[in-house]
Every structure is written in C-alpha cells, then in structure tokens.
C-alpha cells in the first residue's frame, strides 16, 4: 500500500517536474534573448549612435522645404524618384555618410538577431524601434537602393521599424499581466 502511494507520488512528481523544467528552460532561453537584445541597446548608447541618428534627422530637417516640395509630386513615381535623389544627395555629405556607415550596419546586426530569434524582438523594438524609424523614414529610399536580394545588408532598419510580430510568449505574458493587474487592483469592498 505504502509502495503504491510512493510510486504514484514519484510518477506525479516526475510529470510535474518535467513541466516545471520545460517552463524554466523556456524562461531561461527567453531571458538570454532579452539579454542579447539589451547588449545591442548598451552598444547603441555606448557608441553614441543616438547622436548619429539625431545628426541624420537634423540634416534631413535642413532639407525639409525640398522634401515638402518632393512630397507634393502628383504621381507616385516622381515622388519616389525625387525622394531617392534628395536622400542620395544628402548621403554624399561626408559626415552623413559616416553616420550612416555606423547606424545602418548596427541595425543590420540587430535586425538579423531579431529575425533569427537570437534576440528578443519585444525588447529590441521597445528600446530601439523609434530610432530605426527615424533613419528608415528619412533615409529609407537611399538605404533601400543599397539592398541586394541575397544579402541582409541595409535591411535592418526596415526590420526594426516594423511593428513586432506577436510574441510566442504572448499567452504567458497575458497570464503574467493579468495576474499582475489583479494583484494591483484595490480590494473589493
């Protein structure tokens, strides 16, 4: 009788233990992806890439009148061509060229890291999406003109500017948020 109870207990403990181990393993994997994404953010801050992005936006703003004129083009083709011409002429400036040379490869690395699942997308987007949007929106035509189909080069800013795909962890996150929100609610009267 005791043996049977112990046996059942062993089986139950094994089943629960495997479940716990799997969930912990997944959580560990996700944590390492978050850490990797955060390493990119630390590099971004340490390398003063935010100053580069600000510089690029400032330079774009200097051409805002020209950009506004281009955007008034009646047909889409001349708008596209006009923007590419404007952005390419901006990129001929040595300082802009140097800033793009630092920023674009950085986002290529991060974009690839997110795309392959090595970095956590939610973390990367939360920390750096707005910076990628600044580059992609204002220099996108020029950057896109450098892309080649069989290389990830110059794709990173576009990967990072797009909204993140629904996380595989969304259900667990939802559970976590629900429990957190419930705990934060004032006690019912």
């Amino acid at each position: 009788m005791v043996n049977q109870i112990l046996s059942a207990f062993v089986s139950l403990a094994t089943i629960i233990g495997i479940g716990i181990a799997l969930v912990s393993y997944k959580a560990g994997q996700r944590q390492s992806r978050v850490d990797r994404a955060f390493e990119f953010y630390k590099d971004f801050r340490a390398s003063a890439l935010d100053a580069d992005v600000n510089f690029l936006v400032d330079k774009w703003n200097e051409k805002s009148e020209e950009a506004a004129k281009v955007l008034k083009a009646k047909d889409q083709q001349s708008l596209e061509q006009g923007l590419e011409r404007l952005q390419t002429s901006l990129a001929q400036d040595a300082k802009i060229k140097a800033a793009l040379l630092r920023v674009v490869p950085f986002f290529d690395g991060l974009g690839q890291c997110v795309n392959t699942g090595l970095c956590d997308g939610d973390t990367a987007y939360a920390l750096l999406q707005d910076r990628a949007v600044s580059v992609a929106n204002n220099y996108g035509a020029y950057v896109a003109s450098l892309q080649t189909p069989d290389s990830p080069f110059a794709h990173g800013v576009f990967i990072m500017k797009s909204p993140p795909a629904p996380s595989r962890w969304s259900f667990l996150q939802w559970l976590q948020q629900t429990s957190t929100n419930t705990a934060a609610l004032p006690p019912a009267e």
Partner: protein
Amino acid sequence: MPCIVHSTSQCALRLCLGAALIAAATTWSAPGHAQADTSKSNPAQPGTGTQPATGPSSLSDIAPRSAIVDPCKAKNPPAYCNKR
C-alpha cells in the same frame, strides 16, 4: 507505471533520485543559468564611463529629434515606408 520495488526504503530511494534529477534539471534551466552563459563583452553600464570626454553637454543634445517633414506620414507615402 507500477512501482516494482519490494521495500519502502527502495521506493523512497527512487523518490529521492527522481526528485534530485528534477531539481537538477530545473536549476540548470533556470534564468540565472542562462544569464551566466551570456557573454559580458561590454560590462559598462550605459552612459557610465564609456562616453567620450567630448560627449553631449546637455539633455537636449541627446533628446531624440523628430523630422519636420516625415515622408512616411505624407498623404502618399513612398513604397519604402511599407518595407519590412
């Protein structure tokens, strides 16, 4: 799965073994373990010590700029705005 043991002590031993295995697996896969594996190539905290001496002098220097004319917010945005 029947417990094919003949004494309580043997069954308890199995229980301890199983529990030890599970504990080992859980500990190994815990977040702390994964963190230990992460390379610490840049141990410096953001903005502490790694900034060049000629860094930003005020907060406004590092405040994110916004474009006056954003092509992707125009009425007819260029195709690259929808690129992924």
